[in-house]
């Protein structure tokens, strides 16, 4: 576990500044929820963080998920650990996966409720199922920090909290862009509110209520 920090970071779109300058530090064991209206800069901040920190051990779950539709669910999850194996083992795994990998990934997929879909190509899944595959991939990846953009937006009530629980269990240190304030308060230790590309709120979640957060919107 390590510290992740941005100092006076900015993001530009053409000539206009869309984010920052802002500074933020994510300490070990801190799960940060980024909240704010759409267009406030949550996704921009996440991709900026990924840019700066990708040399460290970071897992990314973007809003578009980044799944390969032509590969099976199993292989999409396996891709989380392509860096742990030699190239020939990865290639061989495309043709015939190792028993050990299958068991491990099956267990992970069962936890998010899509174990029986493990040999289905991702292109044939629904939006909610795809989101759970991407969640399983980052869980399998086991990096130090998770950066996720609306990781449960396509899931309904109980399933959303279930997947959030798994993600936060696997990643004690994380930055998650969220629109569901209840989930943010329940699973994150710190809330960061964004407005027009600037941080307007930064507080531990136990000091906040979802009613108080409504002001941001």
């Amino acid at each position, binding site marked *: 576990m390590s510290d992740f920090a941005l100092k006076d970071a900015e993001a530009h779109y053409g000539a206009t500044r869309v984010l920052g300058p802002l500074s933020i530090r994510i300490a070990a064991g801190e799960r940060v929820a980024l909240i704010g209206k759409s267009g406030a800069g949550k996704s921009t901040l996440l991709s900026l963080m990924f840019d700066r920190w*990708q040399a460290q051990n970071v897992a*990314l779950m*973007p809003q578009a998920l*980044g799944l*390969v539709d032509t590969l099976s669910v199993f292989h999409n999850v396996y*891709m989380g650990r*392509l*860096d742990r194996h030699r*190239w020939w083992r990865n290639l061989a795994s495309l043709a015939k996966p190792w028993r050990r990998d299958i068991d491990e990934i099956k267990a992970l997929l069962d936890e998010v409720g899509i174990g029986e879909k493990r040999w289905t190509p991702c292109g044939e899944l629904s939006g909610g199922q795809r989101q759970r595959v991407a969640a399983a991939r980052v869980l399998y990846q086991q990096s130090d920090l998770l950066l996720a953009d609306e990781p449960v937006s396509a899931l309904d009530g109980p399933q959303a909290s279930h997947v959030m629980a798994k993600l936060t269990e696997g990643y004690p240190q994380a930055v998650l862009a969220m629109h569901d304030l209840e989930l943010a308060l329940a699973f994150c230790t710190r809330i960061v509110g964004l407005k027009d590309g600037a941080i307007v709120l930064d507080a531990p979640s136990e000091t906040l209520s979802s009613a108080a957060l409504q002001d941001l919107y």
Partner: protein
Amino acid sequence: MALRATTRVTLGFILLALICLALGDFEISAHDPWRSVGQLLLGLVQPDFSGVDSLGQALLRTVAFAFVGVGLGAGAGMLLALCFHRWWVRTFSAFIRAIHELFWALIFLQSFGLHPVTGVLAIAIPYAGIFAKVYAEILDETDPLPLDVLPRRAGRLSKLVYARISQAWPHLVSYTAYRLECGLRSSAVLGFVGMPTIGYHLMAAFAQGHYSTVGALLLLFYLLIGTLRWWVRPRLLPVYLLVAPFLLGTGLPIMWSNVTRFFTEDIVPTPLKRGEGLPALWEWFAQLFMNQALPGILNTLLLTQVALVASGALALALFPVISRHFTHRASGAAGHVVLVIMRSTPEYMLAFILLQLWGPSMLPAVVALALHNGGIIAHLVGRRSNEIQLRQDAPHGIDRYAFEMLPRLYGPFLALVFYRWEIIMRETAILGILGIATLGFYVDSAIQEIRFDRAMVLILITALINIGVDVLARRLRGYLRLRHGVNRQQC
């Protein structure tokens, strides 16, 4: 009324074709051409399969050369595609694909002789250039996001295979399968320069006047191409690829001294070999250019323009036969059969046959080019027309064609015609080997006279004008703002 850009360009092309028609030699010189056509048709109706042994072997060799050539080409093409961002790889690929497989065969025949390696390389090299370009395009179109979310330290090869090739896989496979069909045609045609494939047996049967054997060979060839999708299965491909190299036959042994001599002496321009200096080289080149290259280029351009317009006209006339807006189930199926036969007959084979029937002139070449290319364009335009939804009270017949279909399809149609321009030019040049005075004729004559240095220069010139036409066609498509997805169907 001001003419629209597409109309202006169309009229320009037609006018140019008419001028070319007036300048070229388009006569039937055989004294009884229709009797031979009748004999051939009779041969097709009463094919003679009695030479099953040699027919079977011809078929087997045709398939084997196609598999090994296309397989090697696909492998090399993929490697080239992975470095396609480098300008010299792009240039190299453009160059090797600008030289027709028959020219490659002529080159290797002089060095390796009648050894299978000649036929294999003749297919593999130009195909590698085409595969490189198309594979690179397909890989470029993949979604870059999966690559971004991969663990950063994953190996390059693993990243490539999991995040890019896996996404592109269905497209890579379908394109490669399509090229395999092209490869079968190329392989068949290589027989005309001596490889043991169908073309060779066709030539022999014609020479002896065995029209029923010709009929049998043609029917078997259509059968081979028509059933492709049933016997070429992804799971069987590795088996085919492993077995094919052993079915190429042995041919004649390679004389390595010939190979070295060819590449170090024969193709060096004569003035250089004799050490006569640059002025003599220039003199040599100027002579070659004025007496052979220039007339060859002129005839090639002339024939290309006429064939291009003829193909286009034929395609516009024929696409309704497979369009659901003009046909019913049965007549549509019949239309499909006609177009399949037209487009699966290689131009070279068709030109050879027509030349035997009608005697030497540019006419057999134009008809062959128009039938083959017109068939392909009609097929693609017809398919496109099936995507159009008409309102329920749309007019019928010729009104439907003129008011509902043509205005919607003309843009895609022109784009397709321009895509085929370079291909028609490549083929036109090569038809010279059959005796029509295009560039191929001069290449072939130079080789007959054992002047390989001249042959090489003429082949290079042919490659350059192919590249030139390709660039021109791209410009025209840009000028007319034509975008069309089917740019990959090109053989």
